[in-house]
């Protein structure tokens, strides 16, 4: 399984043709206390770069973009009752949704962990 990152501060775990998507530790740190998260319903068709989910903190509401195209397998329903999971475990229990990749070539050009760290350090 390999993990990719985007400049929009999302992480993507890829296992076969299934990708799990969430926001990075840096992103949750910047947003502050998360008070609401809206995840896509299974079956939703996502287009790379389109709106996929919503995350709201005491400071602001932000869109989470689909880092790759595909069909949503499931959203993380646990976030509805406990949005704080995004703060406490952003790159684990705080995942947003899983999707079936429709075009694995879209993964090319995404960052690996080292490249993302360098990207964040440069901000």
């Amino acid at each position, binding site marked *: 399984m390999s993990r990719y990152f985007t400049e929009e501060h999302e992480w993507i775990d890829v296992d076969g043709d299934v990708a799990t998507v969430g926001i990075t530790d840096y992103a949750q740190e910047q947003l502050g*206390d998360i*008070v*609401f998260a809206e995840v896509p319903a299974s079956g939703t068709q996502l287009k790379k770069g389109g709106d996929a989910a919503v995350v*709201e903190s*005491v*400071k*602001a*509401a*932000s869109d989470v973009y689909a880092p790759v195209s595909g069909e949503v397998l499931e959203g993380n329903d646990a976030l509805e009752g406990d*949005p*704080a999971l995004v703060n406490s475990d952003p790159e684990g229990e705080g995942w947003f949704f899983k999707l079936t990749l429709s075009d694995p070539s879209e993964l090319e050009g995404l960052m690996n962990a080292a490249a993302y760290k360098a990207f964040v350090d440069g901000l």
Partner: protein
Amino acid sequence: MSGINESGWRPEMSRVGEASAPATFTGNRALMLEEPLIFEIGTIGTTGVDLADSPKVAARLGGLERNRDIGLPGLSEGEAVRHYTRLSRQNYAIDLGFFPLGSCTMKHNPRLNEKVARMKGFADVHPLAPAQSVQGALAVIHELAHWLVTLTGMEAVAMSPKAGAHGELCGILAIRAALEAKGDARSVVLCPESAHGTNPATAAFAGYETENIPATPDGRVDLEALQARLGPDVAAVMITNPNTCGLFERDLKTISDMVHAAGGFVYCDGANFNAIVGRVRPGDLGVDAMHINLHKTFSTPHGGGGPGSGPVVLSKALAPFAPLPFVEKRGEEFVLIEEESAGDHHGSSFGRMTAFHGQMGMFTRALSYILSHGADGLRQVAEDAVLNANYLLRSLEDVLDAPFAASGPCMHEALFSDKGLADGFSTLDIAKGLIDEGYHPMTVYFPLVVHGAMLIEPTETESKAVMDQFIGAMRSVAGRAKAGDVLLKSAPHFAPRRRLDETLAARKPVLVWQEPEQAVAAE
């Protein structure tokens, strides 16, 4: 009943530095009165008005009639008046002090406006009164409409939208109607990253997909990125000018030409029109639709003091699609056009935004403001608003990071970031510190393109003395945030309530009052 609301959080009442002050029996501090919720002081059986018991009647609701009390608190008239008066004393208002909320334009509401709005002929009109009996009120709408199209250089104005976002919707619906009339089904509306959140919300509500336009490092629309995105699917571009970074979009005319060449329309968010009124006519910059917040630019009350009002000016291309009703002058008579009529220039109206004319009480106030200033006075409104904001920007840029200060003068508002504060200190701490200094905080964390944004808008109605005192307070609080003063982390210390737990309030909001016993049981 207990004086404490145990159904939800309530911050503890102790105050730093006041350990030696005696506790009072009532919890009051001289004229700072503690006030429980109305449910905690009301009792069943008390009432302000004595009415005879109603006679028993047979219910005819098929068993759906209410069978128990709904639990409304009962108070005498005197108790109710005191309750709300006490609460009002804990509020902050433009009539109490400087209200530096950026983007909101919290300017003084002149009392002359209020006097005019209270004249019987305006205050007591009914929206269904025959047109002959309300000629004066219709004349006010017509005269105000004339001023708005003249000041903006546009073709027509829809007076009925009731606030800024309602005006945005009106403008976007007119754009959609114009495109549909040509059989042109475009699906995308573009908004800059610094847009008011209402812009993409409006476009989405009107059925469009929204996409961001990136900004240049100096805080303006990126022309190359916009040109690259324009195409046959773009219905409109929504742009705020001056933008929410407090900067004038110098290239708006070029942007309009690009958008028009691509077959789209330009919507201008006119929330910041107060910075350019009398100086720039949006019509000359190629704008197709723009709402005007009468409650900002033209000084009518808002922020809890009164309803908004958002007339929308329209270009020649959009004017035929404007919503009804319209006031027109025919000979010496003012008539209200309420229905589409063939051959009339309202034949393509997309419908109605409201049941009646719009916010009549705001129209009288806005026209009073316009007539009492005159054309030269309105020009000075814009000049003074910009002068005041630049005075604040330059008086604070050495203590707070001002990300766009180097790109020249700002317009009507000054923008700062949280860069350079001590570790662990944030924009929120500065906002809370300002409460202790006796000010309503500035706008925080907006626009989103600036980290820890603080947006300050003094408006033209504040004097140099008021701003100098505020600058002193800001310099002191900013200095404490940079020095890492731990007492600032727990501010406000002197407000009726200490720092509220905004996270818990948002995650577990208590929206319905419960009897304290039930609340404990539910925990």
